[in-house]
């Protein structure tokens, strides 16, 4: 128990930070306890060797990678700069409108009703086209029937200006 208490004070004792009473207690214990005395010597040895650890040498490759970090960040920023050019603004405006319309359609809670309405309009368009097509066919057929009469009428007419000869 006492050894454990003394262990907690060893660094402060080593660095001469203990109050006089604690210092005397540590010295007394170290003089009588071989285990703690060895431990204290090793603690001092540990601290001295740690103080001599050098700064590690950094590799050239790592240094280059570190120098590149701000440049990479700058490049990334330049790549986005084109977005603020005035010439790009009309395209961005069109893209915004399109996105708004598309998202209005895609995320509209009445999407199925809109789909039905669009289908109905498409069908109406198709039937109008079909109707026009059949009317055109009827007209072509009636032209075919009256083709001979029309040709006769044209032939019987005197060309312009001959009546006066």
């Amino acid at each position, binding site marked *: 128990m006492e050894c454990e208490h003394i262990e907690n004070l060893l*660094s402060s004792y080593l660095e001469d930070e203990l109050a006089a009473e604690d210092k005397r207690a540590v010295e007394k214990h170290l003089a009588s306890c071989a285990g703690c005395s060895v431990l204290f010597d090793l603690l001092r040895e*540990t601290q001295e*060797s*740690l103080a001599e650890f050098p*700064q590690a040498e950094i*590799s050239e490759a*790592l*240094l280059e990678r570190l120098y590149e*970090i701000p440049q990479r960040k700058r490049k990334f920023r330049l790549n986005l700069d084109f977005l603020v050019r005035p010439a790009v603004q009309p395209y961005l405006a069109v893209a915004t409108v399109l996105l708004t319309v598309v998202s209005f359609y895609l995320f509209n809670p009445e999407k199925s009703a809109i789909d039905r309405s669009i289908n109905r309009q498409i069908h109406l368009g198709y039937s109008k086209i079909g109707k026009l097509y059949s009317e055109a066919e009827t007209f072509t057929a009636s032209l075919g029937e009256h083709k001979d009469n029309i040709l006769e009428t044209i032939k019987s007419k005197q060309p312009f200006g001959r009546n006066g000869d």
Partner: protein
Amino acid sequence: MLVNTYSRRIFSLSYQFSGTREEAEDMTQEIFLKLYNSLKKFDFSRNFDAWLLTLARNHLIDEYRRTKWEKKTRDEFDEYRLKETTELGPEDAILREETKKRVWEGFNHLSADIRMAVILRDIQGKTYEEVAEIMDLPLGTVKSRVNRGRVQLAKVLKEQKEKENGM
């Protein structure tokens, strides 16, 4: 420039903490990325060194907890370039180098917070007050962690010496 001033210090801290060059290089790069991303948030009334070391410390400990480095082995101590200990005789220099090697390997026995406190105090040479600021801990807690770390490392040395002496 930030890289010139701080890269060696951050790399050393990462290497001492993680124990492998590969991890330390990745960590240093990630810390600098974070640094550039957080520069705008820096409060100029604060000490920049302490702020950067806090950022590095947070990143290293978070990664340590996420990836469990303690299960990995550390690089051989020979790969760590030693400062010349010219004031010692050749025999003492060999013994001191042997102790450093054991202490280096002993770091794997320390928890992340204790390991960081010991590195900042004893290798990086910070005062207890500076370590407390970097680790955002009360002074007493820092002193206690540094002492526990040193005692644990001393016990590792003791065990190894006892094994060698056949005890």
